[in-house]
């Protein structure tokens, strides 16, 4: 039953993505930035999905610390990993956009920089998990770190914004305008990418359950 729902969500997401790709390539190039502006259809939804993932991870971590229910721990890992994948997509598409718009692959633009810092933060989360063997300890420590990391996200974003506005800015984000008939497609694309995120998370969650099953089987094998 659960698998069936997953397949349906996945199929809907794929159809939406294909439809949006078709529409996006059909759009005329944007007046100021040309064709490259259209990358926003992937770039921004990926960022928003990643942020949503971070939020879910934060809530799941708190719930784990309160209830000690390993379901929440599994959710936190799943969602963090998926969020990292999407944030990587966001960073790389942003970098490609920057190469055209600014002429360089990496300008220390406020948004790119804070996205990179957040990526490092959550990569640290996965590394911490990898380094701890004992499941309860791993879940508890990872949850604590996840809370620390999530608190840091707004501080990072604001401080890097201040940092960049203090310096002479070589580049600006602006220059592109969003034609009104793009908004609807953008909304659908947003939904499609979010759905992809949901499917990924669900699959990853099931893998965590497999892992726990393996652990318990191992324990049984040891007991025999």
């Amino acid at each position, binding site marked *: 039953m659960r698998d069936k729902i997953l397949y349906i969500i996945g199929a809907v997401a794929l159809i939406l993505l294909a439809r949006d*790709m078709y529409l996006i390539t059909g759009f005329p*190039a944007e007046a100021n*930035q*040309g*064709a*490259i502006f*259209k*990358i926003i259809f*992937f*770039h921004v939804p*990926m960022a928003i999905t990643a942020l949503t993932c971070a939020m879910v991870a934060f809530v799941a971590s708190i719930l784990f610390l309160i209830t000690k229910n390993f379901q929440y721990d599994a959710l936190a890992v799943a969602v963090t990993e*998926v969020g990292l*994948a999407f944030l*990587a*997509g966001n960073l*790389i*598409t942003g970098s*490609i*956009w920057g*190469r*055209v718009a600014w002429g360089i692959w990496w300008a220390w633009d406020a948004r790119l920089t804070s996205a990179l810092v957040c990526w490092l933060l959550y990569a640290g989360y996965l590394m911490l998990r990898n380094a701890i063997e004992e499941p309860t300890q791993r879940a508890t420590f990872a949850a604590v770190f996840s809370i620390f990391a999530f608190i840091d996200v707004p501080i990072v974003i604001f401080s890097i914004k201040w940092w960049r506005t203090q310096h002479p800015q070589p580049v600006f984000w602006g220059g592109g305008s969003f034609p009104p008939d793009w908004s609807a497609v953008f909304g659908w694309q947003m939904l499609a990418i979010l759905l*992809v995120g949901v499917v*990924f998370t669900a*699959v*990853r969650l099931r*893998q965590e359950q*497999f*892992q726990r*099953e*393996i652990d318990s*089987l*191992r324990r*049984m*094998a040891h007991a*025999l």
Partner: protein
Amino acid sequence: MYALMLLQASADDAVLREMERLQRNFTFLNSGLWVAWLILVVYVLMMVSRERKLKREIAGLKAMLEDKPRS
């Protein structure tokens, strides 16, 4: 006459440059979209391989557990 030709030439130049710019723009958009898809596909492949590994491990352990009580 000569000035007109020069004007024409520079206009042609501008058109060419503009076309080049658009082309480059387009190439980058293309690669950007490819990369976005590629990341998703790579992540899916990573998950599939992990899933396979986990299933194999479960099967192995189950087989082991079934063997043991009999022996």
